[in-house]
């Protein structure tokens, strides 16, 4: 069953009428953990705001739980949870007061849905008398998640929940999302971090208000068309400029301590690797390491972005 459907959803901003969201269509199944992955300005937040009925679309339509985001906004508002990217709870109310306020406006109580938030709430409960404005970044996010969950929503929208949160809290956060998914809550999450994409059931890679690709992370990775090599040498900068000059290179960029180089699949894996190594040795680089590597979501995203830019130019 499809919980969320988008049909040519469009939003334009400003006098220049630049589309922030450009005819986006996709659907999310019930109980799915769906990720919107893309850089800043890709249009993730605009999609969230339209789906949560706080922003009116300029074209196309969307439904959440079968309700139209424009006509039936009232039904949507009482059945979804939304956690905006910016912390937006009352900083002058305590953890407890914030939570009970949001529980009461949805006509429920903390006790009634405590089972949903227990795992998260126990971590911040020791500070429940503290004002929300005085909490650390990770605790704020946990509180915001509690507040978004307290009315037992069927769909949860999380807009960049882990941006600006430390790696340990980020990891914890994703574990919490997995537990919520087990409760059959549909979760749509956006993130600029590619490593988090692999944790979603399905992801949509976005750029400039357009969807580049929608699939499971595994399928997106296996659809990578080229051969990817990880290369290392004694001088990184010289290496990067050398691989960029190499005739067969489709794409090359630094990736951690390695440089990633994609070569056409037609060359054959071993031959392509040996030829690249030979060519690099000729340029005077030493301590060379060249080996084929599995593409990650980030590699796929870079590939898709390059293609997108190339097609935009033509």
């Amino acid at each position, binding site marked *: 069953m499809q919980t969320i459907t988008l049909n040519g959803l469009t939003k334009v901003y400003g006098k220049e009428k630049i589309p922030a969201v450009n005819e986006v269509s996709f659907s999310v199944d019930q109980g799915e953990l769906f990720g919107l992955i893309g850089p800043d300005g890709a249009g993730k937040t605009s999609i969230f705001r339209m789906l*949560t*009925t*706080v*922003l*009116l679309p300029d074209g196309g339509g969307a439904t959440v739980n079968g309700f139209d985001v424009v006509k039936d*906004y*009232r039904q949507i*508002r*009482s059945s*979804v949870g*939304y956690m*905006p990217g*910016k*912390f*937006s*709870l*009352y*900083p*002058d*109310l305590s953890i407890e*007061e914030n939570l009970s*306020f*949001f529980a*009461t*406006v*949805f*006509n429920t109580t903390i006790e009634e849905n405590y089972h949903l938030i227990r795992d998260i709430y126990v971590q911040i409960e020791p500070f429940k008398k503290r004002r929300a404005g005085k909490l650390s970044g990770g605790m704020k996010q946990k509180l915001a998640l509690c*507040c978004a969950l307290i009315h037992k929503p069927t769909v949860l929208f999380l807009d960049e929940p882990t941006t600006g949160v430390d790696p340990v809290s980020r990891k914890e956060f994703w574990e919490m999302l997995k537990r919520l998914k087990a409760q059959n809550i549909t979760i749509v999450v956006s993130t600029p971090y590619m490593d988090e994409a692999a944790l979603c059931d399905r992801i949509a890679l976005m750029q400039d208000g357009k969807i580049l690709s929608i699939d499971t992370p595994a399928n997106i990775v296996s659809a990578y068309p080229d051969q990817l090599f990880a290369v290392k040498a004694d001088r990184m900068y010289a290496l990067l400029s050398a691989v960029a000059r190499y005739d067969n290179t489709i794409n090359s960029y630094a990736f951690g301590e390695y440089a990633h180089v994609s070569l056409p699949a037609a060359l054959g894996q071993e031959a392509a690797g040996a030829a690249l190594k030979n060519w690099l040795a000729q340029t005077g680089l030493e301590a060379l390491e060249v080996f084929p590597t599995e593409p990650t979501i980030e590699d796929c995203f870079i590939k898709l972005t390059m293609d997108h830019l190339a097609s935009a130019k033509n």
Partner: protein
Amino acid sequence: MRTVLFLLQKEFRQIFRNKSILAIIMVMPVVQLIIMPLAADYEVKNINLAVVDHDHSSYSRQLISKITASGYFRLADYSATFKEAMKFIESDHADVVLEIPHGFEKKLIREDEQQLFIAVNAINGTKANLGGAYLGQIIRAYNQDIRLELVQPGRINPIPVIEITSSNWFNPLMNYKFFMVPGILAILVTMVGGFLTSLNIVREKEIGTIEQINVTPIRKHHFILGKLIPFWILGNVVFTVGLLVSWLVYGIVPVGNPGVLYSFIAVYLLAIMGFGLLVSTFCETQQQAMFIMFFFMMVFILMGGLFTPIESMPDWARAIAAFNPVSYLINVMRLVILKGSGFREILPHLGIIAGFAVVLNSWAILNYKKTT
């Protein structure tokens, strides 16, 4: 209705937690009502007088002592020439120069006529105006005394004289405080009602909480009621504190029925809060809201008849003042507190303010969109 109750609980919790705002709400009316009326004094005292006496007669001396004994003038200088006295005006040590010509006494008795010269420093308009008028009055009274002394009044006055005696109704002693305090109280109620409402809503926008509120089932009118009611109550509290201060400090007790005052304030607060609400719908930050409110407050105060009567303003200014809710409140405050007007007399004002309340609030609600 339950939702409004929860919103109110939240709102009051936030207000009582914000100690500085709470203190200002309570301290502002007390301090401003105690200090401002004392400073905003219409009576001009201590006018510095420079006298150039060319006569040195007993008459001239009598005149000078009469002037200084009035309590309004302070003899700053006793110069020999007008030029010297003018220097005192130039250095701002004197406000008025009185020149008594040579042979003042002699000519006055022999020729029954004499002229005096008064030069006034008009940089401070109010002081110059009143100083000149006071001096004129004192000299006229002195003239009357001399006439009595020299001419034996007959049974019938040979020259017909119109004598004017005035009586000041509703404020017999012309105590300017009776006039200023209700006006200042009106301004205070306006500030609390207008400023706080608009800033509070814009604050929710600024810190992003409105985004979270917008995705809840809270309805537009719930949210607005949740904002209006607390500040409506606070406005009434400030008004009551202000009335108590004016009673305890100035002994001002409303001649009219306080119930009439409160019913007017109840409607007035709705109007001014509607205005605050309207401003808040146009602003994204508290800074913007603050400046817009400040601009209107200045207009409201200076064109509200607190310091200068609206009736003496030019036509265009009177047209603007007709759209100034503060002018109606100041008017009603003075009517009820000083004159003791009843409900029927303030009904036109009440009607206009109710109109303001309806128009401003509906405009604000139309403009406050939950979805953009």
